[in-house]
């Protein structure tokens, strides 16, 4: 124990020394050019994805959000905004705060989509609070996606491995998919003037990386994996007797986004 601590202490001192050695010199010291093949240095978070150059993978990806674990920090929202430079006021993912008082009244809010975290308590709850929780939202990756059904030009489509993507070079920007999505995960990107939405970080997944939001979640409330892999956490969770549901099941869209510990109040 003491040995480890000393090691750390030593490293801390070294670190501070480096920084104090001058900002520029410090940065140069700290930043060693990593070489071209940087991707290979990234950990392979999703097994079997590296080097898979096939058009469609053989995997069946599901996303599970653990409502009971989310602390509403908004790391996921920050990562998402950084990953895609999402224009302000539009949200590929967001976190909702649910407060249920003891008169069954439900209060929901999501200031700036949770991007800035929840810095203020709600002061407008008239009765004692019975339960509070956070619900992260993102693309549901429906098995029967309404957006793909209504897109007039085939700009949004479903890949054979279940991702719903948008071809921004073909989208006409009519907004029909935005109307059709029961979950309001779509927005019209004001920069490209095309529809845009969460892709479950298709580009990261194909490189063996977890979606940006899953990668940053400090409490592991967002889980992503392959259902065909019997050793995966998502497979285990869906096999075990947990309370797992999807949003708006009555819509018949059959989302691949599942919620662990979802309460009926969540829409």
């Amino acid at each position: 124990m003491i040995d480890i601590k000393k090691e750390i202490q030593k490293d801390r001192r070294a670190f501070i020394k480096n920084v104090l050695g001058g900002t520029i010199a410090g940065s140069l010291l700290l930043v060693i050019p990593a070489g071209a093949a940087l991707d290979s240095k990234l950990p392979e978070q999703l097994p079997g994805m590296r080097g898979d150059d096939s058009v469609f993978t053989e995997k069946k990806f599901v996303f599970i959000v653990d409502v009971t674990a989310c602390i509403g920090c908004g790391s996921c929202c920050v990562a998402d905004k950084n990953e895609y430079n999402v224009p302000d006021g539009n949200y590929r993912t967001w976190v909702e705060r649910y407060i249920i008082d003891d008169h069954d009244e439900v209060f929901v809010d999501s200031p700036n989509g949770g991007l800035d975290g929840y810095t203020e308590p709600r002061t407008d709850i008239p009765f004692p609070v019975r339960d509070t929780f956070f619900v992260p939202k993102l693309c549901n990756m429906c098995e029967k996606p309404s957006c793909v059904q209504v897109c007039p030009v085939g700009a949004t489509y479903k890949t054979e491995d279940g991702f719903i993507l948008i071809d921004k070079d073909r989208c006409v920007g009519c907004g029909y998919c935005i109307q059709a999505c029961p979950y309001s995960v779509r927005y019209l990107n004001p920069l490209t003037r095309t529809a845009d939405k969460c892709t479950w970080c298709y580009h990261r997944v194909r490189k063996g990386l977890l979606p940006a939001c899953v990668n940053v979640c400090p409490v592991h409330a967002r889980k992503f994996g392959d259902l065909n892999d019997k050793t995966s956490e998502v497979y285990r969770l869906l096999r075990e007797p947990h309370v797992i549901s999807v949003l708006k099941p009555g819509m018949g869209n059959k989302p691949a986004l599942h919620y662990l510990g979802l309460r009926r109040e969540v829409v």
Partner: protein
Amino acid sequence: MDKEYKSHYYSHVVRIAFFLVIGGVLAVVARGLFLPDTMGQYGHYRGSNIEEQKNVEVRNHTNESCYECHRPIRLIHKAGVHQTVSCEFCHGPYADHIQDGKYVEKLPVKRDMEIKALCLRCHNKVIRARPEDSIKMVAMPQHLEEKKVQTDHNCNQCHMVHDPLLWIKAAREMMGLPMKEDKK
């Protein structure tokens, strides 16, 4: 009617039919010309878009990418209770810092009360909706009063941001105080 006409009684119908057919043929030709190459390759969409989607830039990396260079902080961050906190959450995306393996720009380091704001995004007790067992919650400024420090103290005056208990544990050790049991 005895008047002689230059045209047949059906000539305009024939001409209109002819124009309609020509229009139809032109439409078919235009479709062939303008149809995107890989349209319909796998379904009713442009097949080549899948490759484009794969090549979208990865802007957030993993903590491991940061540790590649920032070795000293790696030891601290990975050993502490903040090991699951993403570097990029506080410092910004990797791609703003490194492009093609080359240094581009310094990422911001949070200072002063920015640090407190970041801490309170997760640790603020007044926001009631928290699974309290997975994370230590504090109420401000009660926490500072309880610990008998100035109420304008910043979090990082006691807590090393990369491992919040590092200095606390060191101080306790120095003072010969017993270690608190970690919650997890």
